[in-house]
């Protein structure tokens, strides 16, 4: 094998070897850097899967059905509904809060109305606070799992079906949590939003 930097091609000179090693180390370093950029991008789906799996950051769990295990703690569950700027809809829960026994399934409706003269699309971002309760907040069905369409001035009542997993009674960090808030914010898809708002209006309670 001859070193690429070696002129006569018969022996590997020290200079040629050094150049080749430099090149290898340089390529290795560049590969490492590019790999890290790749891993950074991989972090985005990984993080969202991690949150869904663990309830981290107050991400409610998505389940098929209630386990039917009845618990004994009763917690307050509050509801909060917001509409982000750029979407002219009204949005509010039918009740401000309910009291719910762990393991019991509850259904709560959110009233929503498109105030525009045109059909519009929205998607709800959601989480619960305190964040540690995310892992115990099990949603069976929710309007927030899919994109929602409303015609001009159409109104609707959207249900969310959920229960509080009785496992929370065994978690010491949930021991002093008596109240959980489920919060929704409705957003227009980014591509349909107007250019960045120049005003100071922010997401706030609607309705």
């Amino acid at each position, binding site marked *: 094998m001859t070193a690429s930097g070696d002129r006569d091609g018969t022996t590997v000179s020290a200079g040629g070897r050094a150049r080749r090693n430099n090149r290898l180390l340089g390529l290795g370093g560049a590969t490492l850097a590019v790999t*890290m*950029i790749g891993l950074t*991008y991989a972090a985005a789906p990984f993080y969202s899967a991690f949150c869904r799996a663990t309830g981290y950051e107050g991400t409610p769990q998505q389940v098929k059905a209630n386990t039917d295990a009845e618990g004994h703690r009763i917690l307050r569950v509050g509801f909060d509904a917001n509409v982000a700027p750029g979407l002219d809809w009204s949005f509010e829960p039918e009740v401000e809060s309910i009291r719910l026994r762990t393991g019991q399934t509850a259904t709560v409706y959110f009233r929503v109305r498109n105030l525009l003269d045109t059909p519009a699309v929205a998607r709800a971002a959601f989480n619960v606070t305190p964040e540690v309760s995310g892992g115990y907040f099990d949603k069976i069905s929710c309007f927030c799992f899919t994109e929602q369409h409303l015609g001009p001035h159409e109104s609707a009542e959207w249900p969310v079906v959920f229960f509080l997993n009785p496992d929370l009674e065994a978690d010491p960090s949930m021991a002093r949590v008596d109240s959980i808030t489920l919060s929704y914010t409705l957003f227009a898809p980014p591509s349909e939003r107007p250019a960045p708002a120049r005003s100071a209006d922010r997401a706030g309670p609607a309705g």
Partner: protein
Amino acid sequence: MASVTDLSHHDVEAHHEHHLPTGWRRFLYSTNHKDIGTLYLVFAICAGLIGTALSIIIRAELLEPGMHVFPLISAIMSGDGSVDAAKNMYNVFFSSHAIIMIFFMVMPAMMGGFGNWMVPLLIGAPDMAFPRLNNLSFWLLVASFILLMCSLFAEGSPGMRGFGGGWVLYPPMSSTVGTPGPAADFVILSMHLAGASSIIGSINFIATIFNMRAPGMTMFRMPLFPWSVLVTAFLLLLALPVLAGALTMLLTDRNFHTTFFEPAGGGDPILFQHLFWFFAHPEVYILIIPGFGMVSQVVATFSKKPIFGYVGMVYAMLAIGVLGFAVWAHHMFTTGMSLNAQRYFVFATMVIAVPTGVKVFSWLATMWGGSISLRPPMLWAIGFVFVFTVGGVTGVVLANAAIDRYLHDTYYVVAHFHYVMSLGAVFSIFAGFYYWFPKMTGYLYDERLAKWHFWVSFVGINLAFFPQHFLGFQGMPRRVVDYTEAYAFWNMVSSIGAFIGGAGTLIFLYLLYDAFKAKRLAGDNPWGPGATTLEWQLPSPPPFHTWETPPHIFGDEDAHAPAIAGQGSPA
């Protein structure tokens, strides 16, 4: 310690027939590690002066309650003297202060400046492995700085100039919600270029240190400064791409409707904080580890003893580097992490105090029983050990998630990181600067002035930052332009300290002027028998090309101790 080097005289005399570029070509097209190092140092001094000026203006505003300075500055810079414009200008100033000091002062001085100048000399290499990439990485940094300056004059928040979201660039402040204007895009692109510059530089250092050491200079015979540069280069190579990736996501969120950090499309702004701190916690070690290396060599030189616990020092740096990637979320205790996650990050953060303690005690043990001479580099090095320890102790305090609840985003945090950065990193830079200035320029500086510089800076900066611990305990939030009467006293003390520290900088500038004007020749080794590393075997300033014939390093190649040069004739 019977190891010696064979310094053939022809080595420094040879190759005088090489064409030496002159004038602007010498620097613009430079591929010479010494010239590029000089460029980096000059750049770092200029950026440091700008960053210092920004901080003095910030402290002038905080001298007493009320807004006095920034309405005027805002009126001059953007023609709008209103309170809102003044607040925005204040935010822009502290954001720019941080970015300039981190990316354009400390990093260029340590890695670009001293790293380029000294690593090849210390390991007996003729130059860096990729001299042209070296040139590229310097000029990318200049372009990056120009982009940052552009951001100051571009629109950021509606109707305002500049980006005021802090160096952390958190969305939604940095997304189109908080900063719709292009100022944030300029900052992002500036960080991209600075990152590319540092990644290229790191690859260069890694190849140089692994592959271009002189025969006999085994890894465990290298002095500690090249070791620290090697560890730092790996940190940069692993951490900066994460920043680049996160900033690219932010850029596409801002301009191309992606939703990595936008809840509207299922994104999450907290993800940015995770990615950012996965970069930025190693980054703060990037800012200090080369300082560890410089301080180790300075302390050994002026104690006239080999460094205590050389192998332990190397492994401590490696351990700090590895652990640095495992503690990022201690910056995010208030984002609602689970208790177990907090427990882990508290524990992991406190573990870092162990290798750091190894380093501090090894410096003390090096001085213990040594023949100490308190020349200016040693003063700065001892000052470094003191302030770095103070900053380290407050770091352990902040590592506690429960205490951090209270102190998060208060002036206590500001005091903590300025003790490790503004005092620690900067003191180590000055230790290195005063240590190697005679070698780099061939001139001696006025040691009396250098000691004045040290004492004025030491008093000034401590006076500026120590009271900020009290302000933090009192609950004063950071990044505020105005505060209540309750915080007035210690803010006044802190501002006076900052002005004294600023006066220290003026002494430094005069010292530079004096050193170049007086032209007192330094000779090969102004520091005497303690200076045992290879660079002191060369003339001062070293010729354009050095170690074209590698120095021959004698002694046991398996020894785990830095190679010592100049101890008599070849064995």
